[in-house]
């Protein structure tokens, strides 16, 4: 009776160890520390209505080495350079 209790206890211990080492640890499902971000506007490029008529949906915004900004939409006949 005592032997079967200890066998059962050992089995439980092994199962708990496997759970801790595999399922509980997980891989990429372990949630990292929570950190929400706040966006603070530094400036706006163009005004909203201008932008809608000029570029539509901007597909690419790129900067050159001097910091000039280049905006291109997905379907356009020419590149827009602000």
């Amino acid at each position, binding site marked *: 009776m005592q032997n079967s209790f200890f066998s059962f206890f050992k089995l439980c211990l092994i199962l708990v160890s496997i759970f801790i080492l595999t399922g509980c640890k997980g891989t990429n499902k372990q949630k990292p520390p929570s950190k929400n971000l706040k966006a603070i506007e530094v400036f*706006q490029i163009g005004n909203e209505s201008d932008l809608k008529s000029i570029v539509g949906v901007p597909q690419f915004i790129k900067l050159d080495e001097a910091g000039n900004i*280049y905006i291109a*939409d997905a379907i356009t006949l020419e590149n827009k350079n602000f």
Partner: protein
Amino acid sequence: MSIKGMDIFNDKIYISDTHGLKHSILNLQGQLLATRVINSTYSVYKRFAHVNNTFFALNFDEEKSKNDFIFTVNPDSLSKQLTCLKFSEIKHSEDEIFSDFIPTFPGELSGEDGFLAYVPQIYFGQIYLIKMINNKCETKTIEGYSSLDFPYTKVAEGQKYNYSAGDIKVQIEQSSISAFIQKKGKELIHFFTTNKNAEEPLFIETEIFSLKTNKSIGYGKIDELELKNGTKIKNPILIPKAKDKNDLYYVYDRTKSLPAIRVVKLE
């Protein structure tokens, strides 16, 4: 013209055009310097990016060599040089929907401070980081936090969907937007969305990794936009498109019906 890829490298603008079947090189005034005509839409590069003096392109050429996925190119001839990431090295590359969507929705490439970061648009939770060491590519995979077991659902005829490629319609539930190297090469920040159905409001989620350990150090969302006039907007829809050397982000603000491009700092 349909601009599929664009980058500015060594004072030249590089553009790939999938409709016009060409790669074009312009000067910063917009004058055309050179055009390379491509004979197949499969061979048109889908993205360009650079790190220091190395120019990279991304393509998924199903006809010729789909394994040359991210590679270095000669900036004059735009010919392929060194393959840095093969398509088969991407986790889930054997997933049929994933490979069907890659040519149209490849995801974004961005380079800074010695690193090139790539995240496929259908986001299974992997971010690929390429570093050039002694003219060789060293590629690492960073495991991100993917809250969903699977990032897309196939949609039946008549149901709402957010992406299609040919006849295939899917709701992409976890979609990468862009990733950037920040804090002078110390961190990587990834922007993505989790959207289980088309009716749900869209949140811009973020995950930040230490590039020293390649481990996540923060996960959350952009929960507020403070405009210059002091107005505060909760849960803004800001799509980060570029970043400058001072870690200012150039975002396409889709929060209101009239879009705007804002330059913001994140804190």
